């Protein structure tokens, strides 16, 4: 009964007592490490409606490792508490096995994200937060509409999604998917994402895009995949079209951005498109492994780049490509971390991002969708354009201002953890394949 979920939840409540003391960070870190250990030894939530599996266990452990990195990086007390809350809610969402528990856990993650971005200090942050809140409210509305249709059609809340449903229920489930796509930033439900990711504090964006989005994608796949595989005639065209539009638009818009955060925000939208390809290829035996791999890779690299942006903005007030020029001259460490994670996002091998994409794309080929995979591959090549462009600014250009070398320990340790994950899963694939099917 007492597992990683309860531990993180209690730690989040207890952490309130440690605000404005030096003990907050150690307590949060110890709690997360404890949760990691509990997950490793196989703890589950143990309530009805939740179910664990090998894949969920692996992903939960990775989530907790990323939480450690996020906490190490963080300096604000409130954010640390909310990081713990997000972690607990994410574990619940990952293990959710019925529609009811899924919706509750999903809303919990959403509400904590709203609280997270509501630490508003500037007008820009307010804009980002409000956009996210309105989009989130619409998403919830659509999700509930879908649920209502599903229930009217004879579906049950307290059970996994039925494979054979009445046409009304089927329609309801697809409406629900549309609601969830707001969180996944699938075009045309993406409008809020680029602004929010770029405008709110970058360490918050790291949680929103790196953590929450990935968890939602994995949980969604877990709950909906059996149903989607039964309705291929509907699933394949819908997912293929949305996936292609999302990745293409995301990549093209990223090409034209000047602010680094916006480039990475659009790249995050493009990645949602790649993830959706796994949904389209749901009939392939590799789809679940592919999605899991993609999620693992993505949570490491996306959290890492936004945490780096946070450091750059806080310490050097760097926001645009113009300002980041020549960073590698005086900050070899930061530039190296940034470059490695960008290469991973671009899909350069021996980094997790490549393996994630490769397996999702293979699932696509396996499901007979090779023309879509070709589009995805060309998109991925296009994306190298803007990633390589950032790297070009880091290394090839002369610096306009000289920044002193960044020497703070804990953000660098956090980056080290995230890079270790990106490297490990870039080379050693068998651990994911061993559990991938059980998602």
């Amino acid at each position, binding site marked *: 009964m007492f597992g990683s979920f309860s531990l993180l939840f209690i730690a989040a409540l207890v952490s309130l007592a440690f605000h404005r003391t030096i003990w907050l960070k150690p307590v949060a870190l110890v709690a997360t490490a404890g949760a990691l250990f509990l997950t490793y030894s196989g703890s589950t939530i143990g309530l009805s409606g939740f179910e664990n599996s090998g894949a969920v266990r692996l992903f939960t452990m990775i989530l907790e490792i990323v939480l450690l990195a996020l906490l190490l990086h963080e300096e604000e007390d409130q954010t640390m508490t909310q990081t713990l809350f997000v972690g607990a809610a994410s574990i619940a969402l990952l293990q959710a096995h019925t529609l009811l528990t899924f919706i509750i856990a999903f809303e919990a993650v959403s509400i904590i994200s709203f609280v997270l971005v509501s630490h508003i200090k500037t007008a820009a942050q307010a804009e980002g937060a409000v956009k996210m809140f309105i989009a989130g409210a619409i998403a919830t509305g659509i999700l509930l509409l879908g649920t209502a249709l599903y229930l009217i059609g004879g579906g049950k809340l307290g059970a996994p999604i039925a494979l054979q449903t009445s046409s009304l229920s089927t329609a309801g489930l697809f409406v629900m998917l549309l609601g969830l796509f707001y969180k996944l930033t699938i075009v045309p439900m993406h409008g809020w994402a680029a602004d929010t990711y770029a405008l709110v504090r970058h360490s918050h964006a790291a949680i929103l895009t790196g953590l929450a989005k990935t968890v939602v994608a994995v949980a969604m796949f877990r709950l909906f995949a059996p149903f989607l595989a039964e309705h291929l005639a509907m699933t394949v065209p819908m997912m293929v079209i949305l996936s292609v539009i999302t990745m293409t638009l995301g990549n093209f818009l990223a090409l034209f951005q000047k602010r680094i955060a916006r480039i990475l925000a659009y790249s995050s939208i493009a990645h949602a498109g790649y993830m959706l390809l796994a949904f389209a290829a749901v009939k392939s035996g590799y789809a679940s492994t592919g999605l899991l791999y993609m999620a693992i890779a993505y949570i490491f690299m996306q959290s890492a780049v936004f945490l780096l942006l946070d450091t750059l903005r806080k310490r050097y007030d760097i926001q645009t490509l113009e300002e980041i020029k020549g960073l590698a001259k005086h900050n070899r460490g930061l530039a190296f971390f940034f470059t490695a994670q960008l290469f991973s996002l671009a899909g*350069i*091998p021996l980094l997790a991002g490549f393996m994630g994409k490769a397996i999702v794309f*293979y699932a696509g080929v396996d499901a007979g969708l090779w023309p879509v995979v070709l589009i995805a591959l060309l998109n991925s*090549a296009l994306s*190298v354009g803007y990633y390589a462009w950032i790297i070009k600014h880091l290394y*090839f250009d002369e610096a306009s201002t000289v920044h002193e070398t960044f020497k703070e320990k804990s953000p660098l340790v956090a980056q080290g953890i995230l890079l270790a994950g990106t490297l490990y899963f870039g080379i050693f694939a*068998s651990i994911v394949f061993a559990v991938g099917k059980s998602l």
Partner: protein
Amino acid sequence: MSPLFFIFGPILLAAIVALYGKKQHAFVKYAALALFGWMLIYSLDLLTILPETGYLDLGTYLAVERFDFALTLQVDHLSVVMLILTSLLLILVALSSWTMKWPSSYFALLILFAGPITGVFMSTDLLWFFIFWELTLVPMYFLVGIWGAEGRIYAAVKFFLYTHVASMLILLAFFLIYKETGTMDMTLVRESMLASPVLIWWLLFIGFAVKMPIFPFHTWLPDAHVQAPAPISVLLAGVLLKMGAYAMIRMVVLMMPEHSAQFAWVILTLGLITLFYAGFMALYETHLKKMVAYSSISHMGLVTVAIATLSYSGLSAALYEMIGHALIISPLFLIAGFLHHKTGSWQMGDMGGLMQKAPYLSALFVLAGLAALGLPGTMGFVGELTILIAAIKSYGFWLIVIALGSMIGAGYIIWTFRRVIYGEISETVKKSDFRMDRVEFAALIAFAVLIVLFGLFPSALFDVINSAFSSLAPQGGL
């Protein structure tokens, strides 16, 4: 010695050098030399233990269940020849880079390049092959982008994007092959590939044609070649393009023979166009290094024609020409880069009369140039002659047109001599100081010796090369 050492070892060594080599310039250079030397010894050693035909198994690592994905390392004569060529060139490139600025980062990247390139020639798992193939781009991107000439950034980004797009086609082809055959091992897929879709052949052909490069997929190369620092141009021409040709032979011709026979006319036509188009471009160029770059592409057109014969003698000739081209074009690039470094100009019009100022350097340039146009007694002659014979044997007498390509070659090379080496001494040359670092000069000498040595005694090389394709025709070699 585990072959993994030569694949992942350089990546670790590069990290160490990058982190701790900032002040230890001599150590960094010797570490690189030692590694490349060891690679050369290791690959020569492999040559002695290779079986007559077929592969030598070097082990399987990092196997993944449920997905036929494992780092399977196997080598045959073809791959070992490529490994020897690569490690030899890496040594000479390291020597020619002796006075490069920011040596620790430069040599770290050079070392980093050695790992994946070894992996490309050793791995027979398609996905791992792809991983190494792609990974070679990363050090190249930085080497061109940081140490290159004025237009380096444009060239580096273009090179990276262009070849990356091509790689995507290759990856799709590999996925389709895996779906067709259920295996990723390129030594096993051949049998089950006979009835595979034509699409796979086209994806692979275009993907590798970009790397070789074959017209009309060549446009990234002149930029990259011209902007790269001279030793990196050597690496591009001598290793990266050869990687494309190696993959073309191994995966297009040998792995999909039926399809290749069906589309041999495509390879032949594009090869001939490349040969002549690049030749005419070289004739037209007044930019010294661009002239060398186009001459390099023109020679790769010749290799493509040889590959198009799909015959035992043709492929052997192609492999010989690949080695010859690597050794001949390298000193031309190095000298062109050196002249630019000293005179500050790329234009042949600004030079002239170099012989009076730097006779030894000029002599080396003339030797390499004559080898490029196919002077008997050098590797260029043997390569062109064997290709000509093989092509005529396969396609008939009209392929004597290849000789016209050589004539164009003679045209631009001799005209270049007239403009750069001989003629009246120009103001720029008069002002410049052409003293060269001793180590860098030694590398040039080594190239010259090899060109002549294998030109006079081609049989030494052909003995090894012929074994690479012995499975194709047991009746004997050239």
